């Protein structure tokens, strides 16, 4: 009996000490997915995020002298597990990184109450850009609507009016993420007179897309835009090769531009393009620092540090780190609160000069956030598969802000109206 009591006491002490250890530093949980059907695309990004924070801790002792407590909570890309992870981590967290549009939509109303900023770089709900309505949500540096607009600009040669009479297929995952560009593309189709055909791919059908590509063959579209993730992308590219669809008419969103997916088809995928707000820079000074402080110490699980997704993971953690640093400097503190980080993320200024200081020149276009602009709308580059890797194939492209902004404001107002009572930040108006 005594032994059991001692064991219980030791466990209790351990838990208390463990809890104390957990509370040390700035706690930035990541709702990661290294398991399940989306693990292949999630893992390199999560590796990049983790390695950047490990670098800051090893090289600089954290941010502003405070260590970063970066911890992953595994969701398997399941919305239910994601919400569980959010609930489990929110008590000590200064931020939540939900990592799926489905999870983002679920936790969005909760963060108003819990007062924790959501950081969803390049994903989530596009109208989150409207900071007056979505005070706690941030999706820098570009939203899905930005991505769709940039793709249309590129395939139309800069003149979307030239798409009149053309047929465009949106091959998308039948999931909140995949449906996200539909409102914008439908509005643009009406405005510019092109025919938009939606071809959904079910989660269980990701690897068996012959029906979708038969439909594409029958429709004979001028372009196929892919809003895919996980195993869907590799299967779609395989099917495109199989059905002999011209690769130069096939363009994906930034999550459909993973090196490992294209390696499945190699040379046959030459000409496939993906819009991207990040660009791998193998020779960037930060890569040398990562080698010295992280890889050589055996603290990384990254398989291909030069890949698009891994380096995007680095950029994502950089944005969070810059938000923390901005908040620390403004409030003159080390340990920050979620509310202070919200201010930091709202006042990001990722300029060319700052990118050079960080050793990350060219890895992301410069951008700024503000009270009413939680996205930054950095623009992006078109990356093209050359048979072995992705290379830059365009200058910096910009989304059509005059088209997107009114839609964002309208959708944000509708969201707030449907979710009353919804707090509005009148200072931003």
């Amino acid at each position, binding site marked *: 009996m005594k032994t059991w009591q001692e064991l219980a006491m030791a466990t209790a002490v351990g838990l208390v000490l463990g809890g104390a250890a957990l509370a040390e530093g700035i706690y930035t949980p990541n709702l990661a997915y290294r398991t399940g059907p989306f693990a292949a695309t999630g893992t390199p990004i999560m590796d990049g995020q983790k390695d950047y924070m490990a670098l800051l801790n090893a090289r600089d002792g954290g941010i502003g002298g405070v260590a970063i407590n970066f911890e992953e909570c595994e969701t398997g890309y399941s919305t239910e597990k994601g919400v569980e992870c959010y609930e489990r981590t929110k008590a000590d967290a200064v931020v939540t990184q939900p990592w799926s549009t489905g999870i983002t939509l679920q936790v969005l109303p909760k963060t108003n109450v819990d007062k924790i900023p959501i950081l969803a770089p390049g994903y989530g709900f596009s109208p989150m850009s409207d900071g007056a309505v979505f005070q706690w949500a941030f999706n820098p540096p570009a939203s899905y609507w930005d991505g769709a607009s940039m793709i249309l600009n590129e395939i139309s040669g800069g003149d979307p009016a030239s798409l009149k009479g053309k047929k465009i297929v949106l091959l998308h995952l039948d999931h909140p993420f995949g449906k996200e560009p539909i409102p914008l593309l439908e509005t643009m189709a009406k405005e510019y007179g092109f025919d938009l055909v939606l071809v959904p791919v*079910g989660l269980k059908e990701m690897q068996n897309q012959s029906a979708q590509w038969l439909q594409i063959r029958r429709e004979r579209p001028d372009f196929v835009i892919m809003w895919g993730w996980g*195993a869907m992308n590799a299967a779609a590219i395989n099917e495109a090769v199989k059905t002999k669809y011209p690769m130069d008419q096939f363009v994906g969103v930034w999550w459909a531009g993973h090196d490992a997916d294209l390696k499945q088809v190699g040379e046959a995928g030459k000409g496939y393009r993906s819009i991207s707000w990040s660009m791998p820079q193998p020779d960037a000074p930060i890569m040398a620092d990562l080698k010295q402080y992280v890889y050589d110490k055996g603290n990384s699980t990254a398989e291909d540090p030069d890949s698009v997704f891994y380096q995007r993971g680095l950029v994502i953690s950089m944005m969070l780190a810059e938000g923390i640093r901005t908040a620390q400097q403004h409030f003159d503190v080390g340990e920050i609160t979620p509310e202070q980080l919200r201010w930091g993320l709202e006042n990001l200024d990722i300029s060319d000069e700052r990118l050079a200081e960080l050793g990350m020149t060219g890895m992301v276009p410069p951008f700024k956030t503000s009270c009413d602009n939680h996205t930054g709308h950095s623009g992006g580059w078109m990356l093209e598969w050359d048979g072995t890797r992705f290379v830059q194939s365009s200058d910096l492209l910009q989304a059509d802000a005059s088209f997107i902004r009114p839609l964002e404001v309208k959708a944000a107002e509708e969201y707030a109206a449907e979710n009353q009572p919804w707090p509005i930040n009148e200072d931003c108006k």
Partner: protein
Amino acid sequence: MEILNKIFIAPFADMVAAPDFLMQVLWEGLVSGVLYALIALGFVLIYRSSRIFNFAQGIMVVFAALTLVGLHEMGVPAWISVALTLAVMFGLAVTIERVVLRPLVGQPDLILFMATIGITLFLIGLGEIVFGGANKVMITSELGIPTGDLVLEPFGGLLILQHIDITAVIVAALLVIALLLFLNRTRMGRAIRALGDDHQAALSVGISLQTVWVLVWFIAGIIALVTGIAWGSRAGVSFALEVIAYKALPVLMLGGLESITGAIIGGLMIGMLEKMFEIYWGGPLLGGNTESWFAYVLALVVLLFRPQGLFGEKIIERV
């Protein structure tokens, strides 16, 4: 009127207007159906011999494919990797029988089903530790599987048959024939069938439960490897392959859990009908993605009239 046209006239007019496209749809359906049937066979074999619904069949496909590709990445020649993978699957079968199934002999079916869920979780964890989560390229050409295509022009149209799909259909057909011969013509095959027919009677005439269980789990492992190669060559080898196994559930509902013929016919029926429905009715009428549910609805309709499935045995409980 428009809707009646979309249901009863337009699809058939499309089929007549573009017979080459109809042939392509049927071919793609046949290929999918053959692969569904293969996965379903793995379930049926284990269920017939032990009344266990093997939830781990899907992850066995992933595990076999990952082992094959992983060994090759380590520098092992392709066909030796196949042999070693088969050895790993045999080791897995022995381990499962010794560690999981043997201690649970005589327990209710539900307990054994839960045990296979445990095996699934274990294999997911082990697979991720050993092979990582990255999407790997299947070693199709290294195995000598042709990767080009055969382009035909029936009715002046276009029909593309991938060599890899033709190979998958032929290999699956050979595997099924070999399996049927094994079950019907060999002593061990008859022992498996005897266990499926009457457990107690089979044991009383000296059939070894342990040996049969190892054997059926090993055969399920071989099927998993073939399935993994076929599906992996389409979209790479990753844990997403596990999802494909769920496609076998409506096949089993349709064909019957104990019937090998049911698995084959059910797989082919679902593969071809869901493809036809999606292209000619689902897309135009319902916006597509009907393959996610069509097979289940078809199976439910069959169950309404034949609760044991098309080829399942009628269960008569004597009270």
